[in-house]
């Protein structure tokens, strides 16, 4: 089995030789290589999407440097420490979310920011990291598959920040955070009958969500997604124009810097959420498949790290981070290509913006930490 082969090879690496540079500095060079490949191509795409604005690219590259540094710093923290401090992280995160609701800064119709002297930040971004850690730490201490009581407690842990973030309102982020928590529960062996009954419960809960919790602009986005032609000049514009951009790229694209949809301002948000449409327009299906391959390599390494984690906590955390990364990709590509409603999720590691970059790379820092802090004697097989 491939699984067995991986494990044997790692054992040879770990025991047969002296620890390499990667293990000593806690860097996973394979993952780092894939990430650098993706981020560097992202910068080229960003250069085109911003209308050849080099200053934006330089700023993004700076964020990238800071984020990579943060990733490597985080990878030095042993997973054990993360697990032990999880409850403090969680408590602090929820308090920050409450602070946002009470003292947050308004921007573009939502209240997501906390203003500190000199800079402002989004506590919901930190929750993205805290949620899988907390859930992994909680469930790693329980017997698996989790009992009904543990499931209920887990759902409570997930629900509190998700509801607080949905109230800001920020539907995209709350879905991502909710799913990263749920993924831990699913990986931890949530019983199948509970999964099936939850799916059966989903229909009435969507009804309740629609009527009591969703804001008008969120409802409108969903309705527009279902029928974009109904309002071609208003909220349907984004979807129609991005569909046209993707389709007109064809197999081999119009060429770098040659995309008409993005360069002539037909495509909105071309350098943030809709950057995939720029890629699809300028590099065609070939470009998209290349991007997907790079993502697949990163995801594959994530799965590899998950399968080879030496603790249950590490396994659950790494699995959740990897799956959440996939959800990012899926939701963004789905919304840009008109499969899903527009919920404001950036294309991970490619879209412009420092906040999501640092969150994602810190998450990969956790993966590196899990992979490079293994005590190989503890591996049981």
């Amino acid at each position, binding site marked *: 089995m491939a*699984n067995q082969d991986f494990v044997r090879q790692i054992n040879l690496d770990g025991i047969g030789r002296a620890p390499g540079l990667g293990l000593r500095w806690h860097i996973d060079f394979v993952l780092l290589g894939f990430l650098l490949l993706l981020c560097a191509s992202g910068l080229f795409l960003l250069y085109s999407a911003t209308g050849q604005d080099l200053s934006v690219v330089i700023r993004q590259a700076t964020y990238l440097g800071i984020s990579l540094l943060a990733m490597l710093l985080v990878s030095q923290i042993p997973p054990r420490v993360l697990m032990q401090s999880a409850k403090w992280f969680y408590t602090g995160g929820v308090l920050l979310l409450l602070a946002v609701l009470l003292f947050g800064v308004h921007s573009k119709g939502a209240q997501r920011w906390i203003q500190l002297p000199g800079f402002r930040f989004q506590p919901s971004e930190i929750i993205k990291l805290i949620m899988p850690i907390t859930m992994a730490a909680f469930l790693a*201490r*329980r*017997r*698996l*598959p989790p009992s009904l009581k543990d499931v209920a407690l887990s759902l409570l842990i997930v629900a509190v920040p998700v509801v607080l973030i949905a109230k800001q309102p920020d539907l995209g982020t709350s879905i991502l955070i909710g799913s990263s928590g749920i*993924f831990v529960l*699913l*990986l*931890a*062996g949530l019983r199948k009958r509970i999964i099936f009954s939850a799916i059966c419960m989903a229909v009435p809960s969507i009804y309740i969500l629609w009527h009591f919790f969703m804001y008008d602009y969120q409802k409108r986005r969903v309705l527009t997604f279902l029928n974009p032609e109904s309002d071609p000049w208003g909220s349907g514009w984004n979807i129609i*124009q991005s*569909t*046209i*951009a*993707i*389709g*007109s*790229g*064809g*197999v081999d694209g119009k060429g770098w810097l040659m995309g*008409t*949809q993005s360069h*002539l*301002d*037909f495509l909105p948000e071309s350098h943030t959420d809709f950057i995939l449409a720029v890629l*699809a327009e300028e590099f*065609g*299906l070939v470009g*998209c*498949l290349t991007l*997907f391959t790079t993502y*697949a390599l990163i*995801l594959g390494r994530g*799965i590899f790290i*998950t*399968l080879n984690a030496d603790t*249950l906590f590490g*396994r*659950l955390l790494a*699995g959740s981070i990897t*799956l959440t990364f*996939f959800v990012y990709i*899926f939701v963004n*590509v*789905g919304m840009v*290509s*008109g*499969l899903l409603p527009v919920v404001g999720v950036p294309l991970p590691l490619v879209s412009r913006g420092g906040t999501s970059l640092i969150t994602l790379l810190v998450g990969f820092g956790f993966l590196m930490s899990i992979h490079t802090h293994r005590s190989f004697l503890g591996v*049981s097989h």
Partner: protein
Amino acid sequence: MPQDTLKDHGAEKRLVNTRIWVAVGLMALLGMGLISRLFYLQVVRYNELSTQSDENRLLLQPIPPTRGLIYDTNCKLLAMNTPSHILSIVREQTRDLEGLLASISALLPLSEGELHRFHQRLKRRRPYEAVPLKFDLTEEEIARITVNLFRLPGVDINAELIRRYPEGELFAHSVGYVGRINDQDLKKLDPAIYSGTHTTGKIGVERSYEAVLLGKPGYQEVETNARGRVLRVLKQEKPVPGKDINLYLDINLQKAAVKAIGDRRGALVAMDPKTGGVMAMVSNPSFDPNLFVTGIDTKTFNALNRDIERPLYNRASLGEYPPASTVKPVMGLALLANDVVTPEDKIFDKGWFQLPGSDHRFRNWNRSGHGWVDLPKAITVSNDTYFYIQAGKLGIDNLHDFASQFGFGHRTGIDIREERPGLLPSREWKQGVYGETWYPGETVIAIIGQGYMLATPLQLVESTALIANRGRYVQPRLVKEDIPEVQGEFWGDDIETDNADDTDAMNWELIIEAMEDVVHSPQGTANWRIGKGLKYRMAAKTGTAQVVSIAQGEEYDAEQLKEFERDHSLFVAFAPVEDPQIAIAVILENSNGASNVARDVMDTFLLPRLSARQNTTKEDT
């Protein structure tokens, strides 16, 4: 931790790993879903979406052709195109129009009138048409708008050629004017030819020669961004400019005529009897055609339209007046041609005429009568009684048929569309309109050009030219060039001139001599006004048209009548008699002195030519 001791690490690891492999499978499945979606968009729907992308950015823009220029006979510009910077708005590209107008008015002054006219044009616009808001922007205004264009969606500044009539009122009725295309025009015009063009000829030559003046639009394929701004031109097909047109109109004659008419209401048409070329066409009062080019405001238009003196009305070709005694030469020819009289036949005029069995007296204009009168004298002194007596013998049918050959009752077919046919009464006409038979008394007044009979100044000059040409017919025309596709439409009712040609050549000379005596003989009706000091021989006929009918036996005093009830004075003439170069018809409403106007214009035209021909160095005043 207490739980740890109870945990089965191996089982838990297997459980989690199984779940991870399930997740990997799901991810692969969803990933395939995304790839299929992209394949569907980029391969299956490629053609459709690629076309939509091009439609997004590529716009076919019309380039309007430059309108043809209009020159007078001396190559003086009568209609030209001058560049004007226009601020225009595409309604479909704006969201909040009122807000936009407010931001524009913060940058440059917008008058109430401009806003009002803009809203009027907005109502009549075609979809996605740039509707002009302000014309003739200054350099500073252009700069101020340009730097703010990014926050003025739908606003654009473009240089457009605007029609200008440098002579203003002088040629308003003949050259006419262009005006903005309105709903009614849209129904008739081919939108493909008019794309990019905002005006069309409304009256005069501008209207009738629209097809050649307009030209053919060109097209350019441009790339635009989402806000409709043009970024670059990809392909271009140049427009074909409209054809320039030369007119027979002569600005010097036109000016002389306007000056001679002064502030009186009236009309004058001067024509070259050889070609039919109209050298002057005046309708007074006139108006400034430049007012109409960019759209006239309602207030100004109503003032012009309701003016009691009717400046918008082209009296020269639309004004129908009783021709009065100016038809006597034609009627004299009719008497000769129908063998009613011989040149030597005389009657005795005691000042009036009575039909047998009637006590109604048809009076001569000179109450004391002219004594013994033959046909030449009847024309020279404009004797009415002579014609009254012959009317019965000629009869209305012969009168109608003969006068019809001179163009009465027909449109001349001049190359402008504003023309009326006048009225030449007949038995059939009266039966049709009044349902009554023709009375002999009506022939008596018809033969002196009164009663039902009406003629336009254009018809009078046409019939005068026919006499000058001794029967050869020419059609009045404004434009020198032969443009069959336009002029073909304007041939009016064909006038049979065969009979006139067949009439004994002596008859023509007899009538023309009598008309010469009108000016040159001391007893001629025009002699006292214009007969002195003439350097050339002129043949003419005067006329005085009664506007109100005078009760039997009542004396009247022109001074006591209200202004609009006074007689019209008419005058037709051609000169020089031996080689006619100019024919003129003049009418002055409620005024006299039409002959003086005609002489001023003739002098302006003939004196320089005569002195050049005779090669005389001695100037005579």
